[in-house]
């Protein structure tokens, strides 16, 4: 027994959007971290709906597991008092107007595109289990790209070790 696709999509999208909005407006960082977790999990549901099972698992393990845990720990470690009670919004940042402009253009483009009929092809059918295909692509077709992701990872390791060394020397 499956729920209709549309219901699932609306459900997950509503949760994700609502918790994302709450995330950027909450003053308490810990609440924000938990709301980020909710956003990520709801987005994972949408990945699952798009049959991207491997991306869903990676999202769960890397983002929801690793990154949010880091956020929670840092929020607890870094001077909680000052972090919890700072002024939360910086309204004088005028780059926001550029963002608003971009957003307006995008939304107008969206409405215009929909008004002029669908410009996107419909979703194609993927094989119901495409994890093997992902593995093939990862280690055969796009191996170079896969190897290149190790460069930023190495840079991160070096950077973090340098930061840690500086503190304890």
């Amino acid at each position: 027994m499956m729920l209709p696709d549309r219901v699932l999509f609306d459900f997950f999208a509503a949760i994700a959007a609502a918790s994302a909005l709450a995330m950027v407006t909450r003053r308490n960082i810990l609440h924000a971290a938990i709301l980020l977790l909710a956003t990520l999990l709801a987005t994972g549901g949408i990945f699952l709906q798009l049959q991207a099972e491997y991306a869903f698992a990676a999202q769960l393990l890397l983002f929801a597991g690793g990154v949010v845990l880091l956020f929670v720990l840092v929020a607890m470690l870094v001077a909680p008092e000052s972090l919890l009670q700072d002024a939360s919004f910086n309204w004088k940042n005028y780059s926001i107007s550029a963002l608003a402009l971009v957003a307006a253009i995008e939304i107008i483009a969206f409405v215009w595109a929909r008004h002029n009929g669908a410009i996107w092809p419909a979703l194609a059918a993927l094989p119901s289990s495409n994890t093997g295909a992902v593995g093939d692509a990862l280690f055969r077709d796009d191996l170079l790209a896969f190897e290149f992701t190790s460069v930023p990872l190495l840079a991160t390791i070096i950077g973090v070790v340098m930061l840690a060394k500086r503190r304890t020397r």
Partner: protein
Amino acid sequence: MIPVEHYLAFGLVLFLIGAGGALLRRNPVVILMSIELMMVAVTINLIAFSRMWGAVNGQLFSIFIMADAAAQTALALGIVVACSARPRTADVAKSEPAEAIQGVSDRDQEQPVASIDEEADRYAERLQP
């Protein structure tokens, strides 16, 4: 079957929320979270397009994005911890990150930052009357 536009619209909404948060908030940790949100929005688009063409390459690159985002967040949070160890503000508008990072090593030689073990011991002492 849901048309691709719905996924794109959802991605747009998340991206705008993330961008707004990154530009408007002062708190470095929340700014990082917002950047995270923007990356997730991009990931949604990639995966929707990948499904649209019936190929898995979009999924692949979404995984690369996740790996890089996780690494970058770890580094950025490390910098946040390093910055806020001494200056008692975490407001990016007030503190100068570059100076703070450079200054940490000099100040630490005068007065070493307590290691995590010492901190734990102090807390334990405070707990037990």
